[in-house]
């Protein structure tokens, strides 16, 4: 790039007309940011720092995170956690309660048994699933608000915040942008999307909704987003085939098997990305009828449901914002 082009592009970024775009690899996925405004570059780096901090707090894979410490102390006693971890766990348990266990952060022992994401996934013997189910269930998780501790009563129990942490991270990112005066930004944390404000031309951001029956990048339609988050759960993301049946990665904590509802993929839209993240899993597991009923208990939470028969159901508040693909 020659000097004139370089200066011109820096100048337009400074004026907020050109986006600062970043692609970073963290939280085990690809994070993309598109940020407009005078302080766009600084905001994007600050968001990155924030996500790195959250990964060091919430990852179940890195050692010494709050989550790893809780799991290592399963059966041994309570563990002090940060206020943020506590807040996320409280929200997780609330959604677990409201969804009657369709969303559950304690499926670790089952996930290990199925090892869906490993190189040797397998359908475990029924007895092994029954045994693992003894260790699973959100009601086992004990939170002590006063001491701000979390404990798991039995050895071998494990928490995984994979179904809620990216949502929390997206919410934090949006707070950072707004705190720095950014009025227009889009962050995508591995398919978990948050749109801050609208695009600089005043038009809403447009997010494609992944077609659960198509190839990656194929979309069933687009959603207009403005100060909102969209989070998708689907049984197409990861899985394996055994004896002609498809087994995906979303394990129903109540049965021990991967969930078999009438939903192929569901996208939940809300202002609160953590809520949208947890609810998308809950609705996917519950199925259309009970899932939609759960969503109705929340204000301003909407969804696009793609059913197994490929029919699409859009809740009232999204009808004007969803455009089906041609």
């Amino acid at each position: 790039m020659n000097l004139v082009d370089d200066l011109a592009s820096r100048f337009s970024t400074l004026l907020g007309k050109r986006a600062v775009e970043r692609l970073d690899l963290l939280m085990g996925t690809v994070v993309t940011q598109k940020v407009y405004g005078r302080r766009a570059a600084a905001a994007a780096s600050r968001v990155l720092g924030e996500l790195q901090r959250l990964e060091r707090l919430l990852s179940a894979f890195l050692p010494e995170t709050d989550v790893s410490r809780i799991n290592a102390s399963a059966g041994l006693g309570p563990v002090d956690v940060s206020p943020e971890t506590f807040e996320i766990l409280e929200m997780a348990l609330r959604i677990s309660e409201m969804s009657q266990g369709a969303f559950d952060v304690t499926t670790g022992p089952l996930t290990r048994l199925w090892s869906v994401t490993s190189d040797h996934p397998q359908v475990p013997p029924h007895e092994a699933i029954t045994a693992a189910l003894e260790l699973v269930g959100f009601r086992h998780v004990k939170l002590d608000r006063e001491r701000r501790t979390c404990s798991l009563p039995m050895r071998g129990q494990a928490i995984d915040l994979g179904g809620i942490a990216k949502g929390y991270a997206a919410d934090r990112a949006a707070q950072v942008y707004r705190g720095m005066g950014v009025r227009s930004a889009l962050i995508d944390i591995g398919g978990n999307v948050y749109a801050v404000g609208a695009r600089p031309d005043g038009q809403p951001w447009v997010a494609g909704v992944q077609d659960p029956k198509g190839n990656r990048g194929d979309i069933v339609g687009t959603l207009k987003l403005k100060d909102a988050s969209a989070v998708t759960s689907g049984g197409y993301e990861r899985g394996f085939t055994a004896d002609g049946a498809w087994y995906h990665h979303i394990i129903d904590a109540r049965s021990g098997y991967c969930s078999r509802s009438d939903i192929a993929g569901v996208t939940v839209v809300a202002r609160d990305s953590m809520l949208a993240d947890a609810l998308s899993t809950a609705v996917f597991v519950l199925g259309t009828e009970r899932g939609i009923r759960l969503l109705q208990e929340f204000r301003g939470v909407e969804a696009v449901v793609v059913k197994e028969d490929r029919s699409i159901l859009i809740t009232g508040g999204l009808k004007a914002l969803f455009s089906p693909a041609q």
Partner: protein
Amino acid sequence: MWKYIIGVVLAAIAFGVFWSIGGQGEIKAMSINDVDLASLRDGTYQGAFSKGRWTYNVSVAVKDHRITAIKLVDDKMKPADKVNTEQINRVLAKQSLKVDTVTGATVNSKALLKAIENALKSGVSG
């Protein structure tokens, strides 16, 4: 728009190799570090990641601080995967869709990400 394309290209590449990776403790525990596109010079960069039988070699093209192409040069788990190529082409064709991003298209392939990171690192100036 570009980030959408890059994200989807990554997702498309990852799609074909999902099953063959992950699970291994070491790969799972591995952290993927950030690469600042603003500090990348134009060029085509090679990156590799190898652990046990997981081997990825990628070629990443960068122009004007944007990733313009990612190719799996040699994937021992799934050699010469036609499906990947078709998906990349399909994604590139979708540039006309005017979508900022795609919700529900996740990328989980850490070994592949590491290879891409290693490629981009070699292009960081300074």
